[in-house]
């Protein structure tokens, strides 16, 4: 790892098509351009990316000895339980936000941004590393408690019963994200790499390009939220950068300790650090309607996502390298 300084990593990451496409989307939106992918294409790309990630993991899962799965599963579960609590505590104590607002934001930071997960896989691959194939399953294992704990913290004492929580639980588990990731994983594992070969020009060959186009649109969406930065104030801005770093480093450390490779620990860290802006918002809207959407959408999409994409993921990778060196 000699010579792989954080700065090098950052620079390499900044000049990737992913980051620049996202930036183009943000800039175009801020300048007032009408650039935008049609809604159905954006949704279609999201479906494609999630399913492709699942298939890819599935095809390689046979190579992963099953006994290596236990510790990482525990790590993912722990992160899903810890991260929303950390976020909630910071928001209540340092930020003095209301219970519902804090709970709503905590639910976002407890759950996982699938695109951040995918981008982390991309960086790891670019560095010549690989993450363990079963990581999409860990995403599911982290996502569910992460979201539910955040909501529960926001609902506590609200006297609205646990109806919303049960409904939300159902919606997360059967939501598009988990079904595509886990379904793809299962199909990839059942079919095996060889019989998957004919579909790989589609699911593997196109993956980086499709992600670039997707990030262009995500930039447009984030750009639309940037105008709200002033409204959310400096506290949330700091929160949206510092808390992901804490979660990310924690994720890397737990992941390394659980036996994940450098690539796997990086991705686990990115998952912990990320805040969902596709799966979480509707769930939170239903369960905590009195929380202010400007707070959680702006923090997750306009602060934390770009931070992770640009600086966070390289940082987690560097941390994973550093930890790996200390551990051997």
């Amino acid at each position, binding site marked *: 790892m000699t010579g792989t300084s954080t700065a090098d990593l950052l620079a390499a990451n900044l000049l990737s098509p992913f980051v620049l496409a996202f930036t183009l989307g943000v800039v175009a939106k801020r300048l007032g351009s009408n650039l935008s992918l049609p809604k159905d294409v954006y949704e279609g790309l999201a479906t494609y990316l999630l399913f492709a990630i699942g298939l890819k993991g599935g095809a390689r899962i046979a190579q992963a000895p099953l006994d290596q799965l236990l510790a990482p599963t525990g790590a993912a579960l722990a992160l899903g339980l810890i991260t929303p609590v950390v976020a909630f505590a910071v928001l209540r104590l340092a930020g003095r936000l209301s219970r519902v607002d804090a709970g709503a934001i905590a639910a976002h930071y407890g759950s996982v941004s699938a695109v951040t997960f995918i981008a982390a896989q991309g960086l790891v691959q670019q560095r010549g590393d690989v993450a363990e194939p079963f990581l999409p399953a860990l995403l599911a294992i982290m996502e569910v408690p992460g979201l539910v704990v955040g909501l529960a913290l926001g609902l506590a004492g609200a006297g609205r019963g646990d109806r919303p929580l049960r409904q939300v639980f159902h919606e997360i588990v059967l939501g598009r994200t988990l079904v595509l990731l886990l379904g793809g994983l299962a199909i990839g594992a059942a079919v095996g790499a060889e019989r998957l070969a004919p579909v790989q020009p589609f699911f593997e060959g196109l993956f980086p390009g499709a992600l670039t186009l997707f990030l262009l649109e995500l930039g447009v969406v984030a750009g*639309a939220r940037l105008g709200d930065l002033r409204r959310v104030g400096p506290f949330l801005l700091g929160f949206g950068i510092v808390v992901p770093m804490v979660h990310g480093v924690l994720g890397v450390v737990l992941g390394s300790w659980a036996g994940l490779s450098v690539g796997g620990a990086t991705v686990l860290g990115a998952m912990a650090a990320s805040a969902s802006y596709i799966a979480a918002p509707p769930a939170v*809207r239903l369960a905590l309607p009195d929380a202010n959407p400007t707070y959680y959408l702006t923090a997750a999409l306009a602060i934390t996502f770009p931070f992770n994409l640009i600086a966070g993921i390289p940082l987690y990778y560097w941390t994973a390298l550093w930890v790996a060196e200390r551990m051997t």
Partner: protein
Amino acid sequence: MATTSLKLVTIVAEPVLESQLVKDLRHLGATGWTIVEGRGEGSRGMRASDLPGANVRVETIVTDDVADRIISHVADRYFPHYAVIAYVTDVAVVRGDKYARRVC
């Protein structure tokens, strides 16, 4: 052509509410509804959607008392928390019996 006077209740709401609203309508006595997707702005600004401003426009033709029940319910259950509006128009329909669950 002989027509019956009924009420057309239109509800414009955030997309996350659609399935719950439809359940409510059925439960309150509506025999049908038509939904189109749209976008909009109102007195409450931001909503929880990647597509800011996306909403669903639900129409249901019902008898007067069902209309009353629907708007009361929407006003109680959704107005305080969600971005929702509801309004009622008079309409004339053919074969009015189609729109009443029971005799009214």
